[in-house]
């Protein structure tokens, strides 16, 4: 309290000098804590590591043969041929491949964990089409055995999203895939929050089925627009409050609303949109919706028909996070093409991402990307491994707003690295070593680095 006192005094004086009508001392300023559940993540113990003679896919579109990667203090220190450095650990990776840690932008691990029993259905608050007030991090069970399986497949970073029943499903959280017993200890430091939105069949089925809006696609659009109108007013109210306070007045703070805090975060550019949206015409409208309310429409997830609007997505700077081949479970998933990712990717300034939305395929996101690469190359594309790896590393990091921190093997980046026993685009490929911030978190050949969930411990 004492810390605040001088500034309050200064502000009060300023207000008096400015000749404001409210001459009384200002009430304490109301501010909104934007990070009430802060990350407590700490990298596991690490020593300097030199990986030598590997085929390195950098995540920036480059391939280096017989290259070395040097990890120091949790960061990538050097990448190159025959590095003349000393390390505590040197790994001869002759014949092996090295990639950035794999990033899945679409996971429900922890929120829909294994075992998938009644008590664990924590991923979707299906009580209202707008639940922007929920934060999926509050549902994450760090003991989900799926985190360990994903790590064994090279996943070092993942975004946990709420489900898609609601127009606004709530906040996402980005995690470092380290074993931990609190959510905060996994939370990716300084990663922006995301807001899950959903187009199409799911919201209208869930709410239409209950006889409430939305029951149609036009109802979906009306629901988004009404929410953004309300959020825009909320933002204006807070900005007015802040301006008046700064001007020395003594305004009453607007009533706090955690649902609108999240939507305002989007309008302020602090929270990124992650939009479950399958169809071409819906993605095109969601892009315009963003323009109508002055926010960026972010990443389209699932985007079965993204190939139909590839130009539009690239032009507007949208990432598209896609499956290689899921289809047919709903009408909006009927027009799948196996080259979807490749067609989206082929446009200049595009941001194609391969995602899982699955506790199974998250374990082989490398192979999911491989499927796309090979089916596209059979049908007229010419995509290299060093290019395709970006779909599950750099582009994924870009979608999550963390490309300055991870997603590529470049000097200064966080040392999130995977060593594969062969090309990661082989069905037989396995992650041998996984590093997060320079620390070994998985070693296929050393039981010491096989994490076991509390849930699995001692089961017979």
């Amino acid at each position, binding site marked *: 309290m004492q810390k605040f006192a001088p500034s309050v005094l200064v502000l009060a004086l300023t207000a008096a000098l400015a000749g404001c009508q409210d001459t009384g001392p200002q009430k304490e300023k109301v501010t909104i804590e934007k990070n009430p559940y802060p990350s407590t993540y700490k990298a596991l113990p690490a020593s300097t590591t030199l990986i030598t003679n590997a085929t390195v896919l950098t995540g920036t579109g480059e391939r280096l043969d017989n290259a070395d990667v040097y990890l120091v203090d949790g960061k990538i220190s050097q990448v190159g041929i025959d590095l003349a450095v000393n390390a505590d650990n040197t790994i001869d990776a002759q014949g092996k491949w090295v990639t950035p840690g794999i990033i899945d932008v679409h996971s429900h691990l922890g929120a829909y964990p294994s075992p998938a*029993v009644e008590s664990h259905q924590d991923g979707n608050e299906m009580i209202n089409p707008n639940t922007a007030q929920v934060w999926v991090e509050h549902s994450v069970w760090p003991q989900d*055995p799926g985190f360990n399986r994903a790590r064994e497949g090279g996943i070092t970073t993942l975004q946990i999203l709420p489900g898609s029943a609601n127009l606004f499903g709530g906040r996402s959280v980005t995690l470092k895939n380290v074993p931990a017993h609190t959510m905060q200890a996994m939370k990716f430091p300084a990663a922006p929050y995301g807001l899950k939105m959903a187009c199409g069949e799911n919201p209208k089925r869930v709410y239409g089925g209950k006889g409430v809006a939305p029951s149609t696609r036009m109802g979906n659009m009306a629901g988004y627009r009404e929410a953004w109108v309300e959020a825009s007013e909320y933002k204006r109210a807070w900005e007015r409050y802040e301006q008046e306070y700064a001007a020395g007045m003594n305004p009453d703070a607007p009533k706090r609303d955690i649902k609108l805090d999240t939507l305002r975060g989007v309008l302020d550019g602090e929270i990124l949109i992650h939009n479950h949206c399958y169809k071409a015409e819906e993605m095109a409208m969601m892009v315009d919706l963003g323009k109508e309310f002055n926010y960026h429409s972010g990443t389209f997830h699932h985007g079965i028909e993204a190939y*139909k609007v590839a130009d539009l997505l690239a032009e507007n700077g949208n990432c598209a996070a896609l499956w290689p081949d899921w289809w*047919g479970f*709903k009408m909006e998933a*009927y027009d799948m093409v196996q080259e979807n990712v490749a067609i989206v990717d082929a446009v200049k300034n595009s941001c194609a991402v391969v995602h899982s939305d699955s506790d*199974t395929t998250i374990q082989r996101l490398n192979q999911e990307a491989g499927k796309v690469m090979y089916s596209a190359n059979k049908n007229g594309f010419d995509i290299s491994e060093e290019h395709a790896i970006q779909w599950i590393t750099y582009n994924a990091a870009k979608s999550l707003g963390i490309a300055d921190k991870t997603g590529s093997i470049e000097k200064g980046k966080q040392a999130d690295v995977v060593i594969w026993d062969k090309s990661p685009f*082989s069905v037989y490929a396995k992650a041998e070593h996984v590093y997060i911030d320079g620390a070994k978190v998985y070693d296929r050949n050393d039981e010491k680095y096989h994490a076991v969930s509390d849930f699995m411990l001692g089961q017979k």
Partner: protein
Amino acid sequence: MTKFKLSMITGALLASSAAFAQVTAITGATVHTATEQGTITNATVVIEDGKIKAINPQNMAADITVPAQGLVLTPGFIGSMNQLGLVEVGAVARSRDASDEKAGLDFDPSYAFNPRSSLIPYARKGGITQNVVAPINWDGVYSGLAFTADLSGDFESITDKHTALVIDLGARSKGSRALSFQQLVDKLEGQTAKLKKSEDKKEDKKADKPSGEERVLTQLLEAKLPLVIDVNRAADILQVIKLKTQFSLDVIIRGGSDAVLIADKIAQAKIPVIVSGVSNLPSDFDAMHASLENAGKLEKAGVKVLLSVFGDGSHNLYQLRYDAGIAVSNGMSFDNAIKAVTSNVADAFAIDGGKIAVGQRADLVLWSADPFELSTHVEKVWINGEEVSTQSRHDKLRDRYTTDSALPHAYTK
């Protein structure tokens, strides 16, 4: 009209010659036979009249020669336990025919099979040539009868109408699995008694016509119809082994997450196990031992393993070959993984196909390389001796949106 008639006659003649006289020789391929012959390199396989006529014959006169040096020939892969041809779009009720609230254990979904489903040509891309189609009962015990169809897309593509009875004796969302077992035992005991009674009174010609359920139970008891039991927990599998022994049933286990704990007993009981190559999470308390290594461990214990695409195995059936590759990378032998998607499926369900041997049904797939590898693609597929396309509407959509045109895409066909 006359003109048309003539061309129709010509067409008919051509078709009949194609179907009955044409000899196709596939030469020089590496052939994985899925039999005791194992792999034969640089082999010639001759097909005629829908059958494999010869392998490496001394003399050969073929109408069509398919040079296949450097390529790999396998039996067509056989999918199982999915709803191919019974569903078009999962969430569209009017396109679903795999389940019915009123269905009993004699439910026969083969009446609803749609060979024109868009899922069928798509599955052919994965080298699938036959499939055991199973009904579903979301939370009941008895799903009904599975049937077998080839993937030719022809109206006459059902190859076996009653392939197996499908039941679930695993965890229940409501009630107890104990009752499921108990009621099944009661049914089987009841039918056994009935059969004995009618045998004793053979002279009585006026015996009631058996009900559909009774006919199915009789076929089970005579081991003429395999019984697929969905079950995962070790203790439940042991109950299934007892059941098999007590009633001399032809049992196949599907799921079998815990099967590795009692693999020897399963091998001894000669029960084939249908597993997923990719299930490795404890999805419930029945699946605490799910692991990518299970297929290989069961194989090594002498269990006949069948690989199947779990989950939405209808739309994703083409992925069967990748699941097999993942099983191989986690300890299954390549040869047995080939069998697990071909001959083991054919043997367990007693269906024709799944092997490259003289006299076998000519369902064949020619691959660019290792059939399990992501970089490999299907070169050619033959079903019942006829070459079939691997193009689907997905290819049309891709081509439409990657072709430049001054007109809207709708004009690109």
